[in-house]
């Protein structure tokens, strides 16, 4: 296994806690994460495309201030908890019923410390209700708090036409009703909303079959199965595939649903470093050589769980290397394409197309319809025997209500559009527009000097803010400028790596993106967010748009 070596690594230390274990990424990385990973795996070099991915490290003083911020917040929290306990400050939190005061407390005190004292200060930036379709613009319901975010009151006003940089509407297919959705309306009228049964009992409708066939065709695999909820697709199907005596190797940044599914399966779980083929190979080798702990029996099977695009990092799975490893060690690969299906690849087929890999190389293709397709639910696809097995053993096929028919129709419509079955090239244009928008937005942000994470082709763009107070300030100011952004902090990210996350859509026009970029630029100056030390070294020739277009 060739070490990708010295300065050219994808800046291996994604998180501070990994610094020591990955020697090549220490300190300042002059390469700015530009990598040429041609031969990660010594033997196979099936893929020679450059993966441009960056995870620049924050300057030291930023980290110091960030932790200080949390420290001060925590101290104040203790002070205020003390005052609340002594009745000096009024406690706004809901309290236990009188009758049950002598029960064992439902929550341990420290469990809610973070929520009560830190989250509460800035929680106005989440759960903001909207009252329109989550298209490129949306309308936000204005709300204010009279008691420092403990409760909210709606003013009755609506903030109209806020630019939506938060929804996973990659292809712009979530929009309010127009003529193109006529079939959805028809299906709704004919079928109603619910199904009131499971797939195995009385809940497999002709619509579902139509959708499953289409999904299989779209993904170019033998068969597919659809489920009513994306989260449950992972959590209720992984246990059907692996169990006791099996090993799951899971990326450390995998989504909760994958983690839950893995946990429910009863298999042994080992975590490899994010997108790190070396870490994965080490685990694979050890697993095959040493077998199960204690008994030393050989593992029954090994399943690798990865995601296509990681939703908090914007990184794209290093699929070619992982496939090479999986083949070498005879493991199986389960890939969650929740964010990448529809959004990556020349025709929106996802990560496999992006890398030019046959989808049959991935054993289990999973994805959701919530994002690019503007609907809800999820699918599993692959070989026919896999899908047959799932029909018999999947938890959600037997116990979960099947998908609502109009939702299924929305997916069918979106998928047909992408496949060009509607007789237009609209779908293709959307995919292209998304890629264009993504590149433009990333390139401009980088030039401005922000630290952004992830792959250059990923429409998920995290901009690092680090400090919790800046998180709040950023989101609030942006909303004042009529731009809706998503900010995320602990526990969804590591404590010190709070960030704003932009999701690019094909429906964003250049003007909208420029407006947003201008606002971010202003905020960057106001809040001193331009942490990147590679401003000058951002190589213009690499980020020239034309050179990228040649690459596809």
């Amino acid at each position, binding site marked *: 296994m060739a070490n990708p070596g010295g300065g050219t690594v994808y800046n291996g230390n994604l998180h501070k806690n990994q610094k020591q274990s990955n020697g090549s990424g220490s300190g300042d990385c002059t390469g700015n994460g530009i990598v040429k990973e041609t031969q990660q795996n010594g033997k196979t070099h099936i893929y020679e495309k450059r993966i441009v991915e960056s995870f620049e490290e924050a300057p030291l003083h930023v980290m110091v201030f960030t932790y200080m911020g949390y420290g001060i917040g925590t101290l104040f929290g203790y002070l205020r908890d003390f005052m609340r306990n002594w009745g000096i400050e009024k406690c706004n939190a*809901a309290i236990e019923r009188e009758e049950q005061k002598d029960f*064992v407390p*439902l929550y341990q005190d420290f469990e809610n410390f973070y*929520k009560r004292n830190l989250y509460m200060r800035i929680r106005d930036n989440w*759960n903001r*209700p*909207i009252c329109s379709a*989550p298209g490129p613009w949306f309308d936000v319901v204005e709300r204010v708090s009279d008691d420092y975010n403990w409760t909210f009151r709606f003013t009755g006003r609506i903030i109209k036409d806020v630019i*939506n940089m*938060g*929804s*996973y509407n990659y292809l712009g297919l*979530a*929009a309010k009703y127009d003529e193109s*959705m006529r079939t959805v309306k028809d299906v709704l*009228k*004919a*079928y*109603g*909303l*619910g*199904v*009131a*049964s499971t797939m*195995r*009992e*009385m*809940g*497999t*409708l002709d619509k579902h079959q139509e959708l499953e066939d289409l999904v299989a065709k779209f993904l170019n695999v033998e068969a597919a199965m659809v489920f009513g*909820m994306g*989260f*449950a697709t992972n*959590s209720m199907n992984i246990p059907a595939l692996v169990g006791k005596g099996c090993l799951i190797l899971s990326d450390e940044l995998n*989504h909760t649903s994958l983690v839950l599914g893995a946990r429910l399966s009863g298999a042994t779980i080992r975590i490899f470093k994010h997108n790190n083929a070396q870490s994965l190979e080490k685990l694979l*080798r050890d697993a095959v050589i040493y077998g199960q702990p204690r008994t030393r029996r050989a593992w*029954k099977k090994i*399943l690798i769980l990865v995601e296509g695009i990681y939703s908090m990092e914007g990184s794209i799975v290093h699929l070619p290397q992982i496939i090479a490893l999986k083949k*070498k060690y*005879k493991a199986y690969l389960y890939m969650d394409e929740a964010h990448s299906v529809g959004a990556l690849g020349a025709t929106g087929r996802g990560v496999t197309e992006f890398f030019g890999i046959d989808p049959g190389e991935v*054993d*289990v293709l999973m994805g959701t319809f*919530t*994002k690019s*397709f*503007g609907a*809800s639910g999820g699918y599993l696809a692959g070989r026919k025997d896999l899908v*047959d*097995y799932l*029909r018999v*053993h999947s*938890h959600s096929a*037997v*116990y*979960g*209500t099947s998908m609502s028919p*109009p*939702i299924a129709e*929305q997916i069918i419509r979106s998928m047909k559009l992408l496949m060009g079955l509607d007789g237009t090239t609209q779908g293709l244009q959307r995919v292209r527009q998304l890629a264009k928008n993504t590149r433009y937005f990333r390139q401009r942000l980088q030039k401005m000097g922000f630290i952004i994470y992830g792959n250059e082709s990923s429409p998920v763009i995290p901009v690092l803010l680090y400090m919790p107070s800046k998180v709040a300030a950023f989101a609030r100011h942006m909303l004042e400028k009529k731009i809706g952004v998503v900010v*995320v902090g602990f526990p969804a990210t590591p404590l010190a790596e709070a960030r704003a996350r932009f999701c690019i859509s094909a429906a964003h026009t250049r003007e909208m993106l420029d407006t947003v970029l201008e606002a971010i630029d202003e905020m960057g100056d106001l809040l001193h967010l331009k942490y990147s030390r590679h401003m000058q070294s951002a190589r213009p020739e690499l980020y020239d748009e034309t050179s990228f277009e040649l690459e596809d």
Partner: protein
Amino acid sequence: MATAAEQWVLVEMVQALYEAPAYHLILEGILILWIIRLLFSKTYKLQERSDLTVKEKEELIEEWQPEPLVPPIPKDHPALNYNIVSGPPSHNIVVNGKECINFASFNFLGLLDNPRVKAAALASLKKYGVGTCGPRGFYGTFDVHLDLEDRLAKFMKTEEAIIYSYGFATIASAIPAYSKRGDIVFVDKAACFAIQKGLQASRSDIKLFKHNDMADLERLLKEQEIEDQKNPRKARVTRRFIVVEGLYMNTGTICPLPELVKLKYKYKARIFLEESLSFGVLGEHGRGVTEHYGISIDDIDLISANMENSLASIGGFCCGRSFVIDHQRLSGQGYCFSASLPPLLAAAAIEALNIMEENPGIFAVLKEKCKQIHKALQGISGLKVVGESFSPAFHLQLEDSTGSREQDVKLLQEIVDQCMNRNIALTQARYLEKEEKCLPPPSIRVVITVEQTEEELERAASAIKEVTRAVLL
């Protein structure tokens, strides 16, 4: 004095050394060397035990053959031969090309193809489109969601409700939000699969009590009380929960809620109640099992139900006091990390609630129909009716099992198939046999809805009767 004595000893020792015989000195020298050797040598050789050579490792990797990802499923596996419904799964249903009356879908109130519900969903579609493209936290909260939560809380007369985008995920997420490792959950043996998965995810200690057997539950609670007295420090932080269903999905029976509430206060355990079958069914206004028994809803810590049965939409909800429910907004995994419910489904649920509130008589009608068919199905030789007479979903089990589950399932399937030929759509209750904690016996699950006319109920009952006679004799 002391120093003088010490010096004397030293001198004496040196003198003794001179006087000692040579062989003695040699022996001592050898002993000293041996001790040094013992101290510095390893007791066993690590090198020989492990450390495979690179070649051996490569061989091991070469040799290892994993099991196939999935074992092959025979083409004629009964589970691959599932029902295909053409068109809407409403009262009149086309199953595998046959037009039938639906006795299988949990569409209790017949709201699935209600024009008002459809109109409300259509209006929502026009305004919001289909998907929400985000979880609740990240601009995936629509005003419709807040309305629905508000309406559900009001309907159930509780402080707060929280909606999930999938029925199964509701209780399966709610349980692990509260019950953690080390906590103790007392749960009925007949609890449905969603509860089982929720418990598994919580990693709590699970104590199963016999189905609806309060004496057994009390025995376990008492045992725990004794345990607690032994270790009061641990007991102070060990939360205790009782998880039960209103109407049990797997048995069609009702839980003895008044006794449970008594036990709750006696042993200080919180009650979580799963009401997917009883919400919108039991009670004068369809509020479920609490209303049925006339128990204050505040006595139940958490009520969860799906919106896929009575409300004929998709999703689920939890309701109770804000102190309890609000916690899920950050800790309910299926809530935080999943895309929110499509607004048209929420709008449909709101309209369904409106209809329920406007026609409270509907619940009495449903109850009457249940009783009617329950009565009509009594006394079929070979089949017994399992479940309450007022439960809209109940089971028909074989009176005498053939001894093999497979055979039983085949017999029941034969009955179902023949009923289908007589235009009565039924289904067996399906389980994952290896996954269930306590696998219920095979059964046909009959579902009653308000749309079924008296005549249709009569027809269904007689069809089941005749077919059973033909199949079992």
